């Protein structure tokens, strides 16, 4: 009995490590991946770097994509599903904002949607992970890993309405 307790106490930190790899964001992705009405997009850094090598334009975007090690997108296509869902609330209930080293960067509020930017600090003021939680009429979760410089994002002249489909 004593031995069992000892082993369990020794194993607890290891379990912590295992859980760390399985962050609430991953949990959300795993939960909804391949379900009806949900779309998940996974792009690995390998494929991106391969593509950026082919791209000779040397644009701002290409140099940014080069430093990215992975992009995951989870979006909801079904309108009825969207009504009952809120990724932000789900993450909040999972204790995501208390337990993780994500900092709120900014909230952009629109008429019928809120886009929340969360960042995990990396080296020299860059981010190691950028998380976008779009909630409201549409629910989308975007996770970008790698070396992300926030000011680089601003340099891209992204237009609001031509972005990815959230509907």
């Amino acid at each position, binding site marked *: 009995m004593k031995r069992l307790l000892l*082993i369990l106490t020794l194993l607890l930190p290891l379990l912590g490590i*295992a859980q760390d*790899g399985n962050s609430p964001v991953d949990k959300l992705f795993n939960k909804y*991946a391949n379900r009806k009405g949900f779309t998940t997009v996974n792009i690995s850094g390998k494929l991106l770097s391969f593509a950026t090598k082919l791209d000779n334009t040397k644009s701002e975007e290409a140099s940014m994509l080069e430093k990215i090690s992975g992009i995951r997108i989870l979006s909801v296509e079904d309108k009825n599903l969207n009504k009952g869902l809120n990724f932000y609330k789900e993450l909040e209930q999972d204790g995501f904002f208390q337990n993780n080293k994500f900092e709120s960067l900014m909230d952009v509020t629109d008429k019928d949607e809120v*886009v929340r*930017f969360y960042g995990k600090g990396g080296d020299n003021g860059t981010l190691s992970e950028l998380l976008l939680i779009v909630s409201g009429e549409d629910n989308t979760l*975007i996770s*970008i890993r790698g070396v992300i410089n926030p000011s680089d994002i601003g340099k891209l002249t992204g237009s609001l309405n031509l*972005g990815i489909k959230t509907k």
Partner: protein
Amino acid sequence: MESQRIAILLQKYFEAETNPGEENELITYFNSGEVSDELKPFIPMFSGFKVLSETEDGKLDDDLMNFILESEHKEKLRDRWLWQIISGVAAAAILALLVINYYSQQNQWNDTFTNADQAYAEASKTLDFIAGKYNKGMAQLEPVGKIEEAVSPLYSGLNKLDEGFRQMRKVEMLNKKLKKE
């Protein structure tokens, strides 16, 4: 006659050639009380043997042996217990590592695209979306910058006021010095 025989036995005894029967003979002779004068110096030696054999030293031996065996056994048991713990922990750690490995492998998601161009297009689309939202958020921050701009003339005015006060203080110091003199 007997004393001669005993003398021979003694010699054999000191050369360690006696058998147990002869040793017993020696012991009984020296304890009999009828020892010839020349052999008397050896009495204490053999009477001591008799005392020793009378105090059941066999039992003492057994006790000692038991004690030694027991403690050895205990040590072995403790050792085994320790080893069991160590091997148990090691096994558990390996198991945990395997589980972690399994989980992390599960977490390694499959690429949605096999075509690099498609992946690139999707990625840049995503970045565009993010940039759009980001710039929009930054645009909302612009008024804050304007407030700062508006406040800056106030700061420069205050700085001048501060400088004036500093000079006033200098005048005061001068006044004090003059009064002292």
